[in-house]
C-alpha cells in the first residue's frame, strides 16, 4: 500500500450532491405517500362529482401523475406505505432499528416478524455506519436546511446559537427513552425521534386534516438548533442517532484523511454537521459518512477507506505550514 500515491476516486467529491438528492427524494416520498393515500380514498369512494373544486384539482393532478403507472390506483398504490420509521415497499417491510428496540422495551417480548424488518437497516448500518442520519433521515433534511438558514440569519444580524454540549447526552436520552418505554408499556422513544415525527406529521398534515402534537416538538428542535446549538438535536439529543452510532461503531466503510495531501485548512471540521474532527482523523462512531468533508476539501485529501477502526492520528497535513516547519527544524537539527 503506497499511501503517498493514493488519490481519492474522483466521483467521491460529488457524493454530497447525491446525498442531497437522496434526502430530497426521501422527503418527497413522505409528501407523496399521503397524497397518494388521499387520492386512493377518493378513487375508492367513486366520489369525483362530490369533491370540492380544490379536491377535484388535486384528484386530476394525482390522476395525471399515476395514470401511466396503474389502472387501478385504489388497489395498486397500496404497494408502498409508511415512512422511514417503518414502511412497506412492494411487500418488503423495513423498520428503523430504534422501532425494533423500542418495541422490545415496551412489550418486553421478542416479536420476530417485526424485529426481522429491522435486519436490513441493521446490516447496512454495520457496514456503512450511521448513513441513515446523513443520507435518508427526513428530519436531517430539514435540519441541514435549517443550518443554511441559520447561516443566512447570522449574516443578516441575528444572534444564533453556537453552544456546545456533551455529545454523550444522546446515549443517556436513548437509555432513558427505552426505560420509560419499559415502565409505560408504550414506545415512548417514538415521540422524541424526529424522523418518526416528520414522517407521521406529514401524513397527519396532508391526510388527517392537520398536524399533531409531534409538530410542536419538532418545531422546538428546529428552534433549538437555530438559537442554542448548531445541529444541537442530532448532535446531543437524538436517541436514534445514538443507536445508529453504537451500531456503526465498527463500520467497514469510513472516511479517512490523506495526510500527504492535507494542508491543514480545517474546512472539514467547519463543515462537519456532527462536530467531528476529520482534520485530526477523529471520525469516531458518530460519523454519518455524509461526505460533506470530501466535497469541501480544497486539496482532495479526504477519501473512503475500508477498515473497522479509524486511522490513528497522522499529525499535521504535509501541505501545511506546521508540517513544513517541523521538517525544517528536523533538518536543522540534523545539520
Amino acid at each position, binding site marked *: 500500500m503506497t499511501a503517498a500515491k493514493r488519490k481519492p476516486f474522483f466521483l467521491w467529491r460529488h457524493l454530497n450532491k447525491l446525498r442531497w438528492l437522496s434526502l430530497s427524494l426521501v422527503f418527497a416520498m413522505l409528501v407523496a405517500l399521503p397524497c397518494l393515500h388521499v387520492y386512493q380514498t377518493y378513487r375508492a369512494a367513486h366520489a369525483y362529482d362530490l369533491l370540492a373544486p380544490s379536491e377535484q384539482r388535486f384528484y386530476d393532478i394525482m390522476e395525471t401523475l399515476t395514470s401511466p403507472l396503474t389502472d387501478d390506483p385504489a388497489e395498486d398504490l397500496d404497494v408502498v406505505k409508511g415512512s422511514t420509521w417503518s414502511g412497506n415497499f412492494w411487500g418488503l417491510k423495513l423498520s428503523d432499528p430504534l422501532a425494533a428496540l423500542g*418495541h422490545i422495551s415496551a412489550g418486553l417480548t421478542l416479536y420476530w416478524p417485526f424485529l426481522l424488518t429491522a435486519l436490513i437497516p441493521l446490516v447496512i448500518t454495520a457496514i456503512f455506519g450511521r448513513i441513515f442520519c446523513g443520507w435518508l433521515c427526513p428530519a436531517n433534511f430539514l435540519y441541514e436546511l435549517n443550518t443554511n438558514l441559520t447561516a443566512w440569519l447570522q449574516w443578516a444580524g441575528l444572534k444564533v446559537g453556537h453552544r456546545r454540549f456533551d455529545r454523550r447526552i444522546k446515549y443517556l436520552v436513548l437509555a432513558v427513552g427505552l426505560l420509560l418505554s419499559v415502565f409505560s408499556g408504550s414506545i415512548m422513544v417514538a415521540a422524541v425521534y424526529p424522523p418518526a415525527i416528520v414522517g407521521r406529521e406529514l401524513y397527519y398534515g396532508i391526510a388527517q386534516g392537520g398536524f399533531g402534537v409531534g409538530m410542536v416538538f419538532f418545531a422546538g428542535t428546529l428552534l433549538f438548533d437555530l438559537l442554542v446549538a448548531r445541529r444541537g438535536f442530532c448532535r446531543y439529543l437524538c436517541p436514534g442517532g445514538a443507536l445508529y452510532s453504537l451500531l456503526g461503531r465498527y463500520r467497514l466503510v469510513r472516511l479517512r484523511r490523506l495526510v500527504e495531501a492535507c494542508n491543514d485548512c480545517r474546512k472539514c471540521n467547519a463543515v462537519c454537521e456532527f462536530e467531528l474532527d476529520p482534520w485530526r482523523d477523529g471520525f469516531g462512531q458518530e460519523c454519518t459518512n455524509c461526505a460533506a468533508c470530501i466535497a469541501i476539501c480544497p486539496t482532495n485529501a479526504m477519501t473512503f477507506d475500508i477498515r473497522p477502526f479509524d486511522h490513528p492520528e497522522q499529525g499535521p497535513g504535509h501541505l501545511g505550514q506546521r508540517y513544513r516547519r517541523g521538517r525544517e527544524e528536523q533538518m536543522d537539527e540534523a545539520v
Partner: protein
Amino acid sequence: MGGGALAALATAGAPSTAGAASRRYLRPPGAVAEEEFLSRCIHCGQCGEACPNRCIKYFGAENGHAAIDTPYIIPREKGCILCMKCGDVCPSGAIQPIPREAEAILDNVAMGHAVVDENLCLSFQGKTCGVCYRACPLPDVAIYVAMLEQPHVTDKCVGCGLCERSCIQMPQAIRVMPNRG
C-alpha cells in the same frame, strides 16, 4: 419525565378503566387487547394510510401519553368497512392480519358490540326504520330485524360501527360499546 413515568405505571396497570374514562373509541379491526396493543404499536401511521375509508384517526395528547399517535375509530363519525387492510400493513403485530372473509372476520374481529337503546330507536317507537340492519356488513348474522324492523344485535356483532354511523336518530339509538380487552 419522572411524573410521566409514575403516571405511566398507574395507567399501565389498568388501561381499560383509563380508556373507559375517556372517549368511547374503537381500535382498528384485529387489534390485540389494549395493554398489549399499546406495547406493540410503534406509532407509524401505516394503518391509517392503508385505510380506504379514512375512518382511522390518531390520538394527540388528549387520551394520555401512552396513547399518543395510536389509531382509533369513532364509530359515529365513520365506521370501519372491515376491509382488513390495516392488519395486513401493520408491521408490529398490534393489528393482526385477518383475511377478508366473513368467517375469519366473525372469528377474529372484536372491536366492540352494538347495543340498541329501545327508548331512542325509531322502530321501537312504531316508525319502521331498519337503517342499522341495512348498514350492517354482516346482516342476519350480527344483527337481525324482527317485527316493524326492530333491530336485535346478536353475539356475533364484531363492532365495526357502520350501524351507529348510519343511525338516523339524534342521538343515535344504536351504539358500539368498545371491547378493547
